[in-house]
Structures are given as C-alpha cells and as structure tokens.
C-alpha cells in the first residue's frame, strides 16, 4: 500500500506529541538509581505492595469477566427496552473521577452506608479498609473497560453464526457457550488485559474507599505516592516496576493480536 507523505502542519505537532509522551518515561529511566536497585526492590513493603497489587487486580479482573461478559451480551444482543440508558449508566465509571467513585462506594458499602449498615448488622462484616474493598474499588473502576471491549467484539461478530447454531439444535445458552464466546474470545482477552491494567493502576477510588494500610490495602500506586514524599529514590524504583508491568501488558496484547490475525490469514 502506498502511504501519503505526512504534511508539515501535522508532522510538527505529531513529533511534539511523541516527545511529550515519551520524555517523562525516558526521564524515569535516566533518574533510576540503578546501583541501588537491588536494595530498594527488596526493601520491606515493596514486595508486599506489589503482591497485593497483582492479586487484587487479578481478582478484580476475574470478577469483571464473570459479571461483565454477560452484561456486554445484554447490551449487544438483547432487545430489552432501556438498553441505551443501561449502557450510559454502565459507562459512567469510565468518565467519573475515581475519587468520586470511592466516595460513592463508601456511601453505599461503608459502615453507615445503605447496604453496608445492613451487612454489618446481619453478618458483622464491614468492607471499607480491607483488601476486599481494594478489589471492589478496582472492579468498579475497571469493569467498564471490559464491558465496552466485549460489547464491541460482540457487535462486530457475525450474529448469523448464532442463527446457524440454532438451526443445529443449540438453545441460546449452548449457542453462547459454544459459538458466541469462542468467537469473541480475542475481544474478551483484550478487554481483560485492559481491565487488569486499569485495576493495577487504580489510585483514587482505592485510597478513598479502602484507605492506605500496608499489607492490606496499600497497592503499588499508593506506595509510589507515599514514597515520593519520604524517599524519592524508592518512588522511582516502584514506578519503574509499574512501567515494566505496563510494557509487558502491551507486549502481551500485541502478541495476542498479531497471533490472532496471523492465524486468521
């Protein structure tokens, strides 16, 4: 395919944009205290925060897949009325400032919250400031990414395959399991990776709803923010770890997409 030469009025801002996006990351690498890397990485709390981050982001992603894929199906396929309203409601967390999400969660699930009070009275369980709260906050913020991604995949998938399955005796549930889900699997995978990355970086809703307790609710982004005030070197190292995880996520996505398109060709 022949590509057009880029016009200068586009080229200059584009180059500026690249610089703007890449320079801070380069700065992070330049300022990294490589000699102290080992000591800083093995400092108490770092491993703990990293483990907590990975575990809570993974659990939040699993919850998002289990609840979000069916929701995406409803948005893409059902003929229920009020679907437009439903989609708007679902995507609110996508644009809502995460701190507001945290406040909202606190008002509902907090000890004095609408659901939280009843939960505390009935079972003695309180959610805020626990690892469960971290997972809930991350799920709240990240699930819409998965829902939107899977809904897009479902809309792009040829619904006539579902007709074909029905003519072969498959009811709607069997069709979903054996035809629809495998067809949109790449979309689910991409959505899950996006969702996981978003959950991993979650800050606002987590600190508002779950607090900042090392070992139970202090995830990597919270640890980075605190470290920057006490020990900037440690903050840089922690940031580097998150950067590496992000790059690895991108590579994973790219391999997945390239692998898929390669197989289909």
């Amino acid at each position: 395919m022949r590509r057009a030469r880029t016009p200068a009025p586009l080229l200059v801002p584009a180059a500026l944009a690249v610089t703007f996006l890449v320079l801070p990351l380069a700065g992070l690498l330049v300022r990294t205290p490589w000699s102290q890397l080992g000591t800083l990485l093995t400092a108490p709390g770092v491993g703990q925060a990293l483990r907590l981050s990975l575990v809570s982001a993974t659990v939040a992603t699993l919850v998002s897949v289990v609840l979000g894929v069916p929701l995406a199906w409803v948005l893409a396929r059902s003929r229920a009325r009020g679907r437009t309203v439903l989609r708007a409601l679902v995507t609110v967390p996508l644009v809502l400032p995460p701190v507001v999400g945290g406040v909202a969660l606190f008002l509902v699930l907090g000890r004095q919250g609408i659901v939280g009070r009843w939960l505390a009275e009935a079972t003695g369980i309180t959610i805020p400031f626990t690892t469960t709260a971290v997972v809930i906050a991350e799920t709240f913020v990240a699930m819409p990414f998965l829902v939107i991604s899977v809904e897009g995949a479902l809309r792009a998938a040829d619904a006539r395959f579902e007709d074909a399955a029905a003519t072969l005796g498959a009811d709607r549930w069997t069709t979903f399991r054996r035809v629809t889900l495998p067809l949109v699997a790449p979309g689910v995978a991409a959505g899950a990776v996006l969702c996981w990355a978003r959950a991993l970086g979650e800050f606002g809703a987590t600190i508002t709803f779950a607090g900042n307790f090392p070992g139970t609710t202090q995830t990597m982004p919270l640890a980075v923010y605190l470290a920057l005030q006490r020990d900037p070197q440690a903050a840089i190292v922690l940031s580097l770890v998150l950067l590496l995880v992000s790059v690895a996520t991108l590579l994973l996505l790219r391999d997945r997409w390239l692998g898929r398109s390669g197989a289909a060709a």
Partner: protein
Amino acid sequence: MTLDARVVVRRGPLTVDVVLQVADGEVLAVLGPNGAGKSTALRVLAGLLPPDAGRVAVDGRTWDDVAGRVHLPTHRRPLGMVFQDHLLFPHLSVLENVAFGPRTRGASRAAARAAAAGWIERVGLAGLGDRRPGQLSGGQAQRAALARALVGDPALLLLDEPLSALDARTRLAVRAELRRHLADFGGSTVLVTHDPVDAMALADRVLVVEDGVVVQAGTPADVARRPRTDYVARLVGLSLLPGVGEGTAVYLDGGGTVAVAEPAAGPVLVAIRPESVALYPSRPGGSPRNAWPATVAGATPHGSTVRVELDGPVPLLADVTATAFAELGLAPGSPVWAVVKASEVAVYAR
C-alpha cells in the same frame, strides 16, 4: 405432504405472502430476484423470524401458527439449513462443525463424531475433518456445510442460495453433487435461489416469487415452456437436455447431437437459452454445426417476443420477435429449422 406452510411476513414496504407445500423427498425451488422476499420466507420456516400471519406445519406437527399463538423455537425444529456463505464455525474443525448438531441434540461425543465422519466422507471431504473452515476452498466449505445440515437426518432441509458464493467452475461441480445428495434425501427440501439454472437442475417444482408473491408455480419444464410473465420468461427459458459428452459433441439421451465449444466427457446436461436459438424456414447455408429440423409444438407471446416450443430430436425453446414469427408463418405443426452456435451452448456435468 411433509411441509405445509403459508408464510405472511412484512418487511418494510414489502409483504411476503407465499404458500409452500413440499412432499417427502421432493425439492421445491423458490426462484426470484434479490429482494423478492425468498430468504425472508426461508427464515420464517427455520423459526429465525416470526411470521406476521400464517402457519407452518411439518409432518403434521405445527411449528408456527400465528392465530393459535404457536411458535416452536428454531433449536427445537428438526431441520437442516445451508447458508449462502456456509457459516461454518471458524473456531471449530470441520469434524466438530459437522458433529455440532448431533451433540446439541443429545448424541454422545463418540456417536456424534462417528456420524460426522460418515457424512464428511459422503460429501467427499475424507481426510479434511481436522481442517479449520478457513483452510477449505469455497466448494469444500459448502460441502461441509451440506454435511452439517444433513447429518441429523432432518425432516426439512433449507438451502439459502447454497451455490451463489462459489465461482462458476466450482458451482458446476457442487451443483452436480448437491443434485445427488438431494435425490438421496428423504425429507422435504426448500431451495431458495436467484439462479434459474439451480432451480431447473435441482428442483422437482419451482415457485417463482416476485415482490413477495408467487407469480408462477409448476415443474421446471412447465414454467419454462409456458412462462406467465415477462419476468418468468426471461428468468427460466433455459432448455436443459441430458446427454453424454464425447469431445466437442454431446449425444442426447433423446437422440439428437449437439456440438459444443468446450470438450465434455461423461453424463452432462446441455443448456441452451431461448434467445440463442434462431429459426429458419429451410436448412440455412454456411453449414452451421448445430442445425436441427423441428416442428412447432406451441407458441406463447410475451412482450415483443414469442416463445416457441419445438419438438424434434433436439427439443428446444426459442424466443423470436413477433415480426419474425409472423414472417416465418409459424403455427403449431409447422416444420422449421433451429440453429444454435456451439459457443452459445453451456454444458454441465450431471
């Protein structure tokens, strides 16, 4: 009567209203231009689209009855359907695709795979069961789709433009095979197509549908001989003559010989369009390779042309202008010479 249906369905400005009756082992072709409502009617039979009025019954069992509020969901109808672009599931192997129906209908894994393997062999895809649909040619994919539709021994087989996605050469081969499988199939078949050759070659009866309504019904020969509208005449004028090919000659089962441009071998169908046939009062000079004596058996005017039915060693339909018809002084029983260029004769394997 296995399939007994009246389908009424409104789609925008178009109202489809057709009666479909097909006996066991019979093939009904629904022929019409794109947008005539053929595929819509087929989707109703499959249960994929609820009708606005009417009734669908198969083997005495009601599948749809709008007045009686009956609608059997698609997955509970014992049918098989072949789609235009095959719609094989891309994530499953050919074997898994064909075994899909038996599995969902309750067969054990082993039984489903055995049945699927049998059909894969029957449609000539032995050894390709492990392939993904993306690794098949168009013709192979359509054969696999046919196996997938027939494996459960359905009561009703629905074919939605099964050959139109194939290139011309493949279409000939797959059409010939489809003809064999349809002859073996014991249930009712409804074939939707816009290609008159499919209808003429595959169907026992043809229903010509235009703007949602049936404009003519009958055997392929009837419809071709006595077209009731211009549209039908243009669509189904083809003369199909069975014979045996040998080099550039085809020896017709009825006794005549037809010269063809492309060499042919074995049992074939010769197809001649009525507008390719020229009529002369006596044997024309210049020794054309295809010139046959005939007698006029009948004539039907349509538009500015007259369709002439010819009897003889090579029975044909010929379209001539009304002026030429008058100048030749043709009437039933008149002797006449029919001339066709070899390059205008199409040959299909059968």
